[in-house]
């Protein structure tokens, strides 16, 4: 009755994650954000905006149309995707690491009915929310430049959510794996920066060597850029569908990884 025998199998078994408990952790993050957003919103939001102004207006003067549209219209959707990626990534790397290792926030949460998996999922959902806030704000700021040309733009929130969720799961996986905060820099320089270059934000990938194009196909940001461009500017539901499918499949595949990694890391 009251006794239970622990054996190796019961320990490795991963308990089911609970969405309602993950939501409670999401609410914790949202409450903190209400107090800190004035400080944290700025940094990651302005960088893509500077790209839009400098490249779009500056470089755009010297470029003819790219793929039949103005250069600033070409780069704007990619920068929306980039903003969403930054939003989700910042939350799931530096912030998550700090909460887990320094502030004891994870420890406090799992002293309550929350399980480690709930915390990981709540963290990912919150990062998704931030991706949506950042990406949405960017769309609103960029709109006066005339970059939104399609009614398919109404689906942008769903696209941002999908992009945010994928980068949240990937970012958390890396964060829950590394032992020291310094290693998080490698995630940026070895993973995010190449994607930033080769995901078709600033130029179409069609003229690059075939092997680069193949490599780029495996980069999540490339499909995120394609999705945003198809919805916001080109109005091509077929392209959007294909990109969304790629992102959705990879998101589902990556989903269990951070949950398992967090348990492996923190369950002593």
């Amino acid at each position: 009755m009251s006794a239970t025998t622990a054996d190796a199998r019961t320990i490795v078994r991963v308990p089911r994650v609970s969405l309602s408990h993950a939501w409670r952790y999401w609410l914790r993050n949202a409450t903190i954000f209400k107090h800190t957003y004035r400080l944290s919103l700025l940094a990651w939001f302005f960088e893509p905006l500077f790209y839009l102004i400098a490249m779009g207006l500056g470089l755009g003067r010297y470029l003819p149309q790219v793929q039949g549209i103005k250069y600033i219209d070409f780069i704007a959707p990619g920068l929306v995707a980039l903003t969403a990626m930054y939003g989700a990534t910042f939350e799931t790397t530096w912030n998550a690491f700090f909460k887990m290792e320094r502030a004891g926030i994870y420890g406090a949460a799992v002293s309550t009915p929350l399980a480690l998996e709930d915390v990981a999922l709540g963290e990912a959902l919150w990062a998704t929310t931030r991706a949506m806030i950042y990406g949405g704000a960017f769309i609103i700021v960029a709109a006066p430049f005339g970059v939104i040309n399609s009614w398919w733009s109404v689906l942008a929130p769903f696209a941002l959510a999908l992009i945010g969720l994928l980068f949240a799961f990937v970012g958390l996986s890396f964060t829950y794996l590394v032992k020291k905060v310094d290693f998080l820099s490698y995630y940026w320089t070895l993973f995010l920066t190449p994607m930033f270059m080769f995901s078709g934000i600033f130029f179409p990938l069609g003229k690059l060597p075939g092997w680069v194009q193949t490599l780029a196909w495996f980069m999540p940001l490339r499909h995120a850029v394609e999705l945003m461009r198809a919805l916001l500017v080109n109005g091509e539901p077929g392209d959007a569908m294909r990109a969304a499918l790629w992102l959705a499949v990879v998101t589902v595949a990556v989903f269990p990884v951070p949950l398992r990694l967090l348990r492996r890391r923190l369950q002593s």
Partner: protein
Amino acid sequence: MDGSPGAVVARALTKRYGRFEAVRGIDFTAVERSCFGFLGPNGAGKTTTMKMISCTSPPSSGTLSVLGLPVLEQARTIKGRMGVVPQENNLDEEVSVLENLLIYARYFGIRKDVARPRAEEQLAFVQLEDKRDRQITQLSGGMKRRLLIARALMNEPEILILDEPTTGLDPQARHLVWEKLRTLKRAGVTLLLTTHYMEEAAQLCDRLVIMDEGRILVEGSPRELVAAHTTRQVVEMFEPPEEVHSALASIEGSVKRVERLADRWLFYTDDGDETLGKVRTLPIDPGSVWLRGGTLEDVFLSLTGRSLIE
């Protein structure tokens, strides 16, 4: 006591990390509505045991039930009925005292209209009501500890787990925490705590275990342990001069046990007056000799040794 199911029951409870056994098959029963203490030097396995009880570290073998429920299968249920006061402050630094309590209440699924008055109630209980809108960084160490206790009470737990509840606090703050814990026990909360302070254990615990190297050495009430494992009284001498050492050594035969430390001699005896009388005949500064009762600290040191554990 018999017949009570026990708030926490462990049988042959073991925790291994790879090949290292942190807890080596311990048995204990913490009775409901009592205070049960874990004492021991660093590395004794106290904190590991507490982690297993609070369902954050699964046992490697043996059985462990909390509130009659098995820890592995019923972790969520158990955690919902338990409060945990950690050793390290893990409050949300970005928000106020009150909001810390409300965030934590939400983890338990407590509705806001219930959480709000309960938070005020708990703040009053730990005497922090006038700090409700303060930032965490503005609180002293003692206030943070009291807030951690208030937070752990937000779900009105049946069991409260405390890992070194007063380490690092000044005497005023420590006595306030003790008073609050005794109030909780009277209200029917089962307390489980670890401590390094023998006085704390003697003040609070109905029963306690002394652990060392993953095993339980002894179990009992503080009074029982003092009676069983040390003498009724102790005569201490501070730096006795060289020339009386041989005379002191001759007294050794009439006492239970002698300990010679770098700066002190200790005579463990059941007749302190007789021993003291013998010592007083020697040419020793009377101010450097004193008689005291046997304490839990004597029990602890005789069982776990005086060597420093790091």
